C-alpha cells in the first residue's frame, strides 16, 4: 500500500519541512509516496511537490475554505482518502501536531508522534520524557499516523522529476474554528527551525536590549537564526517563538552557539542534535559545557563582540 504525506505550505510555497517528512516516508517504503496539498489557490505548491524525488503522485484539494488550513477542515479532507494508505505522515510542527491526532482518532488508530527513526514499517523510535529516554514502539493498527521530527531525517535531495497531479474534492467540517488573524514574525533572518546556524541567548544576556545589542550583531555576521532559552523568554528578553527546548523549537543546525545559557535539561533536549555546539558562559560548571564541542569560559559581553570582529 502507498504512503500519504500531508504537505505543509502557505498556499504559495512548499515548506522545507515537507522534504524531511518525505525522506522519512521513503525509509518506510519508497515505492509509492503520495503527497496531499490541501489549501486554497495552492496549485503552485502541488506543482512544486510533483518535482520532488520519490513522490509518485500529488493530490491537490483546493477550495476557499481550506485557505487557513484549519485542522477540522483538513482532517475531513484527509479522511476522504486516508483509508487507502498504510501510513499517513506529517511534520511534527505546530501544524502537524494540531492535525495528526484528529486523523488518527477518526480512523480509530494510535498516533505516533515525533518519530526520530524508522525501524520497520510498524516500528518506530520516538523520544519521551523530554528526550531523556528513547522508546521503540510498534503499532498494531492497520494505518499508522506519524509525525516526523524533522531534525532526525535529512531532507530529500531535489530532483527534477515530474509526478502525476490529481485533483481531489475538499471536504469541510461544519463545526470548526474560524481564523480571526495570523501574525507571523517577519523574516529578516533565517527561520529558527531551518537555519544552518543558530545563535541562542540565555538569562546571562541580562536584558532584551543586550539581546539586541550583543547577540544580534553575531547572528547577522553568521547569517544565523536567533534562539533563546526558556529563562530568557520568560524574562522577556526574546519572543516566545524564539524558544529552543522541549517545550519550544527542536533545532539541529550545523552550528549552534549558546551564549549565556546554563543548559537546563529542557533546553538541551531542543538542541543537542546540532552538529557543532559552541558554549560561551562565565560559569565553568554550567551543564551546557557537557554537550558543547567547544567551550569558552568568560564574560560574554567581551567574548561576543570579539567574535563579531573576528568572524
Amino acid at each position, binding site marked *: 500500500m502507498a504512503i500519504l504525506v500531508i504537505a505543509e505550505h502557505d498556499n504559495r510555497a512548499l515548506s522545507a519541512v515537507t522534504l524531511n517528512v518525505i525522506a522519512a516516508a521513503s525509509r518506510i517504503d519508497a515505492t509509492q509516496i503520495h503527497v496531499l496539498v490541501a489549501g486554497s489557490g495552492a496549485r503552485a505548491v502541488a506543482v512544486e511537490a510533483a518535482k520532488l524525488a520519490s513522490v509518485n503522485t500529488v493530490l491537490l484539494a483546493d477550495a476557499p475554505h481550506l485557505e487557513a488550513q*484549519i*485542522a477540522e477542515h483538513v482532517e475531513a479532507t484527509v479522511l476522504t482518502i486516508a483509508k487507502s494508505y498504510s501510513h499517513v505522515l506529517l511534520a511534527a*510542527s*505546530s501544524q502537524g*501536531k*494540531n*492535525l*495528526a*491526532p484528529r*486523523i*488518527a*482518532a*477518526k480512523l480509530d488508530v*494510535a*498516533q505516533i*508522534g515525533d518519530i526520530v527513526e524508522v525501524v520497520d514499517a510498524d516500528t518506530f523510535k520516538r*523520544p*519521551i*520524557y*523530554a528526550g*531523556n*529516554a*528513547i*522508546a*521503540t*514502539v*510498534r*503499532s*498494531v493498527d492497520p494505518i499508522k499516523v506519524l509525525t516526523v521530527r524533522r531534525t532526525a531525517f535529512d531532507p530529500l535531495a531535489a530532483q527534477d522529476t515530474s509526478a502525476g497531479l490529481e485533483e481531489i474534492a475538499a471536504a469541510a467540517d461544519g*463545526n*470548526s*474554528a*474560524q*481564523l*480571526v*488573524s*495570523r*501574525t*507571523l*514574525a517577519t523574516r529578516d533572518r533565517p527561520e529558527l527551525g531551518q537555519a544552518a546556524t543558530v545563535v541562542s541567548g540565555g538569562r546571562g544576556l541580562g536584558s532584551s536590549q543586550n539581546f539586541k545589542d550583543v547577540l544580534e550583531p553575531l547572528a547577522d555576521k*553568521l547569517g544565523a537564526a536567533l534562539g533563546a532559552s526558556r529563562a530568557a523568554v520568560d524574562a522577556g528578553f526574546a519572543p*516566545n*517563538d524564539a524558544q529552543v527546548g*522541549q517545550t519550544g523549537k527542536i533545532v539541529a543546525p*550545523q*552550528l549552534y552557539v549558546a551564549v549565556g545559557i546554563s543548559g537546563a535539561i529542557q533546553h538541551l533536549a531542543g538542541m*543537542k542534535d546540532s552538529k*557543532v555546539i*559552541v558554549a560561551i558562559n562565565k560559569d565553568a560548571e554550567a551543564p551546557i*559545557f*557537557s*554537550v*558543547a*564541542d*567547544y*567551550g*569558552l*569560559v568568560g564574560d560574554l559581553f567581551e567574548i561576543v563582540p570579539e567574535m563579531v570582529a*573576528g*568572524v
Partner: protein
Amino acid sequence: MKVVVAVKRVLDYNVKPRVRSDGSGLDLANVKMSMNPFDEIAMEEAVRLKEAGVATEVIAVSCGTTQSQETLRTALAMGADRAILVETSAELQPLAVAKLLKAIVDREAPGLILLGKQAIDDDANQTGQMLAALAGLPQATFASKVSVEGDRLIVAREVDGGEETLSLPMPAVVTSDLRLNEPRYVSLPNIMKAKKKPMETVTPDMLGVDVAPRLQTLHVEEPATRKAGVRVPDVAALLGALRDEAKVL
C-alpha cells in the same frame, strides 16, 4: 457554563527520569509524582473563568490508577468544584483517554473542555485533538490566551513562527501552552477544603470504553550522549577551531 478539565498524574518535572537498565521503561518506584504542568495551567484557566463569572462549575477529570486521586485533590484545592476519577490500572494511551473523556463529556455536557497541550511523560500532544475529533467539537491547541465573547470562544494560540487567533463556537476543546497563565500555589485552607469536595469514581467498563493499548513499547533506552568537547582558551582559538577543525565557518 460547565468546564471540564483533564489532569494527568506524571513524574514530577523536577525529578530526573531514570531509564530501567533492562530497557523495560522508566523507573517510577518511590519517586515524586505531580500534576502534569500543562494540565495545571489548564486547571488554573478554568478556575479563573469561574472567578470571572464565565464558568459556573469546574469539573476535574483524571484517568488512571487509584493514586490519581492525589492529582484530583490538587485540582480541587486549586478551585475545581468536583472531581471524577476514571479508575483503571491498565496502561492508557492517548486514544483510550480521549474515548474516556468523550464519555464524560457526553454525560456532563460542558461548554468548554480544557487540557494541557501534552503530558511531560509520553510527550504525545494528542489527547485534546483526539477528543475534539471524536466528540465532533472545534479545537484550539497551544492556547496562550482564552476569552469568551458572547457565544464564541476567542483563543490566541502559539504556532511556528508567530501567533494566530481563532474564534470557536462552543462547546469547544482547548489545550494550554506554557504561557497561558501562571498557576497559583494552593493554600493550606484550600487543601483542607478540597478534602470535603465530592470525588466520583467510575471505570472504563462503566463508560463502555475499550482501553486496550494500540502501541506496544518494545524497548526504552537512554539517548545517545554527546562526546565531551574541549575548552578553548580564547576567541581566536575558538574561531580557528570552527574554521579549520569543524569547518562550519
